[in-house]
């Protein structure tokens, strides 16, 4: 039962990846692209958690935590760049 559920969940998250990626390519302005990147890294965390459940290994959470921290810093940096024209003043 858990196997089937995990396969359905993999399909849903992959579709979510596809939608975010289409917005990343299409996005008319820069904030849309930043938002699409933000969504992509959150989707990557979801996929890593599902992989950890599928392979029954707790090794994936360090990678998920690292992606969370790096993605947050990247989003803040890009938004700050749009806001001030400079990241560190």
């Amino acid at each position, binding site marked *: 039962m858990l196997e089937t559920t995990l396969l359905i969940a993999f399909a849903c998250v992959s579709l979510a990846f596809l939608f975010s990626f289409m917005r990343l390519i299409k996005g008319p302005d820069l904030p849309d692209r930043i938002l699409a990147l933000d969504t992509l890294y959150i989707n990557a965390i979801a996929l890593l*958690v599902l992989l950890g459940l599928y392979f029954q290994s707790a090794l994936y959470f360090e990678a998920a935590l690292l992606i969370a921290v790096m993605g947050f810093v990247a989003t803040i940096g890009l938004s700050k760049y749009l806001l001030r024209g400079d990241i560190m003043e």
Partner: protein
Amino acid sequence: MFELILSALILLGAFFTLVGSFGLYKLPDFFMRLHGPTKATTLGVGALLIASALYFSFKTDYISMHEILVTLFLFITAPVSAHLMAKAAIHIKIKQVKRTQNQIK
């Protein structure tokens, strides 16, 4: 029974992740698009992480804290990044749909 709860949480999480990304793709305006990923996707990933924490806590004998750490971090940082992105969009005077309220002057 335990497997049923786990499956329900995983399906809920995957569904909300999909809804968030679909909203990001479908909605017409940046300020509307901001709603999808920052609310629905965060809830979806939160449900997935809770399912994973339950699974690993019952599989091994000790409580699995990694997932709770990721959940906490995600729930703290999502509003901050959404606020900064909205601020940047207002600053560069992004194009808006007519029916969005409180238009940027």
